[in-house]
């Protein structure tokens, strides 16, 4: 699978963002995924979100595990450093990168196999540590790259292309996150860029671990009748009652629309999130009400999407650790070395 460079011929002058960059500057190599794969739509949303955020590509570090989903970082933001790591280990590697350089905006991309089976331990602990990063699970209910085995997110009754229907209860990353003390939990659908882009932007602004579970149909292995991760199923069963607007710190807040339980949350960096038209009894900052709401809909075979839970009050890993605001990696080593006088002095402790 060679990497294919995209032709860079703009058809009409493209709009630029605050940095003077066009959306093309946030793209990457040509995708080699199957035509129609949900993952490619998520790539497009990522491109859009970071372009809209006017984030310098060099400030972004994109990491992934292994899988079709984990290949995608090469398809977006070519000016960002990237790390296509090992199956299931991205969260741990991202934790180390965050430790070394907190100035980077870390964007992790993973699959449901990568995150909910082999890498579930690392995901859980990255949530627990509240490593500041955006973590996208491109959730298709199967192992795409190894040709369609059911994954741990497959719903009961889901029929793989070959073999028996699934009888084991699925792991829902949102429920996992709620129980692990996650501070930002969202679910979206790869086919819904309009919803996903603001969620991604809010996730970048979040001061901690932002988990986004994106249902992303695998057209080759899991888009048939009987699959709850198919385009058709999600379109028919999606519940989009939790609607969120993201207003970056620079802009005036105009988007606030009142309604049932409308609610505003100011993010760590000063940007503002408005939950509008949230259903009755639903409070995106209250873990219990979020859980009850999602479970209730799940019982009816419905998939709730939106920014579902948010806690901006938590401390990130670096805040807990009292690390300086600049990158540890940038401190010159000779400045970190205590030198001979200290060592000579220390030696008296070993007499």
């Amino acid at each position: 699978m060679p990497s294919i460079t995209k032709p860079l011929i703009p058809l009409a002058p493209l709009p630029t963002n605050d940095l003077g960059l066009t959306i093309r500057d946030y793209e990457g190599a040509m995708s080699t995924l199957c035509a129609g794969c949900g993952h490619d739509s998520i790539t497009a949303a990522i491109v859009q979100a970071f372009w809209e955020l006017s984030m310098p590509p060099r400030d972004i570090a994109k990491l992934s595990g292994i899988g079709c989903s984990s290949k995608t970082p090469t398809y977006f933001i070519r000016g960002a450093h990237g790390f296509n790591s090992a199956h299931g280990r991205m969260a741990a590697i991202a934790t180390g990168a965050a430790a070394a350089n907190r100035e980077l905006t870390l964007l992790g991309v993973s699959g449901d196999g990568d995150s909910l089976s082999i890498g579930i331990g690392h995901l859980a602990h990255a949530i627990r540590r509240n490593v500041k990063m955006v973590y996208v699970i491109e959730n298709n209910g199967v192992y795409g790259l190894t040709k369609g085995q059911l994954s741990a997110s497959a719903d009961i009754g889901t029929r793989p292309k070959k073999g028996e229907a699934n009888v084991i209860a699925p792991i829902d990353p949102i429920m996992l996150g709620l129980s692990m003390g996650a501070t930002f939990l969202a679910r979206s659908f790869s086919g819904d860029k309009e919803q996903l882009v603001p969620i991604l932007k809010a996730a970048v602004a979040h001061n901690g671990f932002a988990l986004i579970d994106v249902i992303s149909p695998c057209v080759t292995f899991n888009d048939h009748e009987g699959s709850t991760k198919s385009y058709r199923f999600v379109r028919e069963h999606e519940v989009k009652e939790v609607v969120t607007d993201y207003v970056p710190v620079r802009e005036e807040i105009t988007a606030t629309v009142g309604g049932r339980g409308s609610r505003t949350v100011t993010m760590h960096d000063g940007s503002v999130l408005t939950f509008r038209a949230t259903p009755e009894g639903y409070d995106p900052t209250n873990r219990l009400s979020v859980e009850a709401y999602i479970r209730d809909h799940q019982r009816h075979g419905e998939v709730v999407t939106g920014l579902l839970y948010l806690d901006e009050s938590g401390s990130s890993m670096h805040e807990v650790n009292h690390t300086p605001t600049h990158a540890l990696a940038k401190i010159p080593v000779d400045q970190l070395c205590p030198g001979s006088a200290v060592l000579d002095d220390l030696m008296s402790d070993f007499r």
Partner: protein
Amino acid sequence: MTIDAAREVRVNDFAIKLANVNGTGSASANGLLMQAIFRMGIPVSGKNLFPSNIQGLPTWYEIRVNGDGHTARSLEYDLMVAMNAQTYGEDIGSVRSGGYVLYDDSWPLDAALLRPDVTLLGVPFAKMCLENFAKPRERILMKNIAYAGTIVALLGIDADLVAGLLAETFARNEALRESNQKALRLGYDYAVEHFDCPLPFRVAPMDKTSDHILIDGNTAAALGALYAGATVAGWYPITPATAVMDNFTKLCATYRRRTVEGEDGSISVENDYCIIQAEDEIAAIGIVLGGGWAGARSFTSTSGPGVSLMNELLGLAYYTEIPVVLFNVQRTGPSTGMPTRTQQADILLCAYASHGDTKHILLFPADPKETFEFAVESFDLAEHFQTPVFMLMDLDIGMNDWVVPRLRWDDTRTFDRGPVLTDEDLAGMKEFFRYANANADHVAARTLPGSDSKGAYFIRGSGHDAFGRYTERPDEYQEVVDRLKAKHAAAAAYVPAPVIQRRDGARVGLVTLGSCDLAVREATDLLAERGVAADYLRVRGFPFAPEIREFIESHDHCFVIEQNRDGQLRSLLALEAGVPLTSMTSALFYGGFPLSAGQVVDAVLENLEA
């Protein structure tokens, strides 16, 4: 040795063994004795032979005193301090003929245990403590200091010096200081009153340790990481490596913590380090990869089971060329093995850790001093070669206190960060490709995340070409892995050179590594007394320096002495140094205890005679 010879006066040349029950506080009393001898200027070693248990099982401590500096473990015990009734039989049985046994005669000793060739010294320690101390816990703890007092008298250790050490230790706790001093006196006075003190083997002050320190390897490793400027560490607790990170954490809290004043005048602390206790060793090494990729000096410390878990990501670091430092404080395998026993059985595991064609740089320190020096070196090597570097220590080095020359730091020392491109470098380049334009050591310059977009690249553990692009083409794939092989080979000129000691006319060569050092060097002296001149070579790094091959080829008989069952160093030498396996004879000691010279001599002589 006959009883009479054993009872001749012998100064600064003896070994004692202390048998205790673990979890009763004996370790501090035993350490105190060793420290006192060290402070008297005499070369000494202490080996803690402890169980994998928190309380109630037998544990031993051995002290070897040797004015000539032969302080490897000795199995010839002149004095057995038998404080554990569970192991009386074994302990009394292991004293050399003509030796002494010190025991608690608060209770009578089973007549079956008596030996005509051994002198029993009974002291009613338990009774003594019962009468003199009120609290139950104190009675148990002070028994240890009481027997230490007796030993101070028996060996002629400077009692004032010991009292001074206790005063230092308990400087801030008067009550404890008082009871310790009292217990010391009780034991000491009893000995002086009842026995001929000192015994024929005894200490006398020397001036051989004034420029030395008493330190364990795990502390030295942590100091090395501190001095190398490591800032990111990921780890998971495991004996015997845990103390590396405990010490690093403590050192960082002292030397890497700054107080900063906020704009509002508030005071807070800032830590120039980030130590993460991970969820497992896979995460620990993952954190190190992430940190190393992002440009921080990053490391982990672990032992065999941890290295097994880290294998996949070590291969990722090797193939993507990320600097990683891994301290492996080896313990006895396989599997859980014997967690509190020493071994050198991870040599092959570490040399080739991970699937596919992988080869790593290994450093083999012999003691805490080399551990400190090599630790600093390991961070330079990892960044110079952009690859994992293993510090292969072992439990003996890591957890025992060693007398070694003071650690020194040269403030003019510079750090080798390896080729890293800055934004300015990138500005002057037409294009950047991660693995292109390798230097003479076959290392290509890298960029760090956060650098100019021109230097951005997608690092991947999947097949890549010399430009870092995905490939499945045979020639492109091979070009990269062939360079990695050449890069590894180039490290031979950078790892610490072997230590070689020659004797006139030697036709026998003893090749060893790591903590076998003292025992094997002593063995060459003992062999010379027996008419066998043997040269000595200690391997200190892998890939192997060419001198090692020359040494093996130039001796009629070469023994490779190591602490594992399968002769792993010998195998690695045959595979990688170009010497036939059959040109080397293995001498293997893998029961889990530190090596003694006598064992080496026996193995060599037995083989030469055969």
